């Protein structure tokens, strides 16, 4: 089951400050949309519209249906969300944390069924976390907690997955591993993935589609090679950005210039 997602003319404000000025972008079912842009560009705000945790104008469409019309529970069956800094409650076992992903399938007063427990074990297995089931979720390393979050997403079994800076706090190797995992899950399960992502190189290498957001406006959406050009990145970030090719892969770096070093 795959679901296409479309943001249609999204506007959002915090108080009197407008942070999104009519953003429109879509991604095919089973695709991967990366939202890039400077700090404060509105990436997280855009993703939080899908989570339903802020009020906004415009509409978010899942397979053409506006998700605003859905109840919390129905929405949770379609979209799973991991925030930038998830709260890992101290003392909570990994198993219990992943079990939270089953919430939309449980009646308000019901307790977990055998199928729910099996779904949790299946998710833990897919992310090589079976041995971690009884560990305290607050004592895990950065890479491990990201895998735990992904396991919860799998248990939630939603066709659309929204990850806000999934790899922000990880070292290079762990970041690469998590992104590969996400890509593997996307390909094998047909999940539609939407991520906010700071690392432009990672965005270029993993995301099928990239949107560059600047000051609440889309300044380009398309494949990485179309959007992440030196000219465009130079005007949005800083002029010293270089887009280079290393063994066929795109690498985006910021050079230290004479000017900035003096």
């Amino acid at each position, binding site marked *: 089951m795959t679901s296409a997602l479309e943001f249609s003319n999204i506007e959002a404000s915090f108080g009197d400050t407008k942070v999104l000025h009519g953003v429109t972008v879509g991604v095919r079912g089973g695709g991967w949309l990366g939202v890039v842009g400077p700090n404060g560009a509105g990436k997280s705000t855009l993703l939080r519209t899908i989570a339903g945790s802020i009020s906004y104008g415009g509409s978010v469409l899942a397979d053409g249906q506006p998700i605003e019309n859905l109840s*919390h529970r129905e929405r*949770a069956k379609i979209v799973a969300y991991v925030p930038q800094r998830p709260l890992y409650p101290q003392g909570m076992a990994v198993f219990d944390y992943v079990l939270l*992903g089953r*919430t939309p399938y449980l009646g*308000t007063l019901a307790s977990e069924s055998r199928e729910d427990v099996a779904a*949790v074990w299946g998710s833990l297995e897919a992310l090589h976390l079976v041995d971690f089931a*009884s560990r*305290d979720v*607050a004592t895990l390393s950065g890479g491990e907690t990201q895998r735990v979050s992904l396991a919860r997403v799998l248990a939630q079994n939603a066709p659309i997955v929204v990850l806000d800076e999934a790899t922000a706090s990880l070292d290079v190797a762990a970041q690469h591993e998590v992104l590969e995992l996400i890509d593997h899950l996307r390909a094998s399960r047909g999940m539609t993935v939407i991520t906010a992502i700071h690392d432009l190189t990672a965005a270029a290498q993993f995301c099928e589609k990239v949107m560059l957001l600047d000051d609440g406006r889309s300044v380009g959406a398309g494949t990485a090679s179309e959007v992440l050009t030196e000219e465009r990145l130079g005007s949005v970030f800083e002029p010293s950005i270089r887009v280079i090719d290393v063994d066929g892969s795109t690498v985006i770096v910021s050079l230290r210039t004479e000017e900035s070093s003096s």
Partner: protein
Amino acid sequence: MNAGRPSATRLHWWWVGGAAFALFAAVVAGVMVGPISIAPIDVIGSMASRLPFIDVDTGLTERSEAILWEIRMPRVVLAVLVGSMLSAAGASYQGVFRNPLADPYLLGAGAGAGLGATIAIAYGSSTVGWIIDPLPLAAFVGALGGVALAYVLGYTVRSGRTSVTLILAGVAVAAFLTALQTFLQQRESDTLREVYGWILGSLNTAGWDEVLLVTPYVLVCLVAVLVGRRLLDVLSVGDTEAGTLGIRPGRIRLIFVIFATLGTAAVVAVSGLIGFVGIIVPHTVRLATSASYRVVVPLSILLGGAFLVVADIIARVAVTPAEIPIGVVTAIIGAPFFAVVLRTSKGVVS
């Protein structure tokens, strides 16, 4: 390969069995102990005789039977109800506010009940002959009023309706109501002793009246918290994420606060402000077993009842024939016990 594999964390039957046995043992001990001691075997025999189709000859005199069933048993049952309710309410508050220091009095239930009780004691002497005793009613209304005030205040804050604004509103309401209560208490100093005694808590009963009064409230509230306890785990990841998992955090929080407060108000009305139970019992359970509220809530209900019965035994016998206020006992034995639990546990209180 995982088909049929059980949950990695669950309410093991031996946890429930152990806690239920602790509660039963505490109840038996609670009715045994007193100026006239009754052997445990006779207590159990007499209890069994009350079951249908069972007749045990205990050899207890009529007088001992009366002491057991009309004096000691109501008090012990009241201790169970109060201890269970305060522990369940404490666990609920800790869950919905994601705050380990939350207790049933956090949002002003304690201060409101204190003010209500003080008014009833100071100005209630003219109500002799009323059909209902004004003291529990005033405490009950005061507790509900305090929390309602905090909720209204916390939810009309412009900057946002978060659990933190609600806690701060509760702190403000509690401080205000406590100040009013202290003012009244100082003005009507001839009732000072009585007010002070009420605030420190007591399980003194006159037969089964108090038990019958609070049982419906406690049962309804305990059942509500028990059946919804899984939702406290969902709330523990924060409102934003809980919302994306398919629940409405604000609504769930309100429902838990309503039941926790209703039950707390009912038990406070008959027993005064017994402190510490709502904090130390859920935390002890959490440290000893699991942090999941699926486990914490049922075990806290069983062990909270047992804890308060034991505390009440100490309150009755430590300085006979006088009684220590039960609130003092729960703190004196509760605080060091909790310190030991904290030191010996591997986990960290969240």
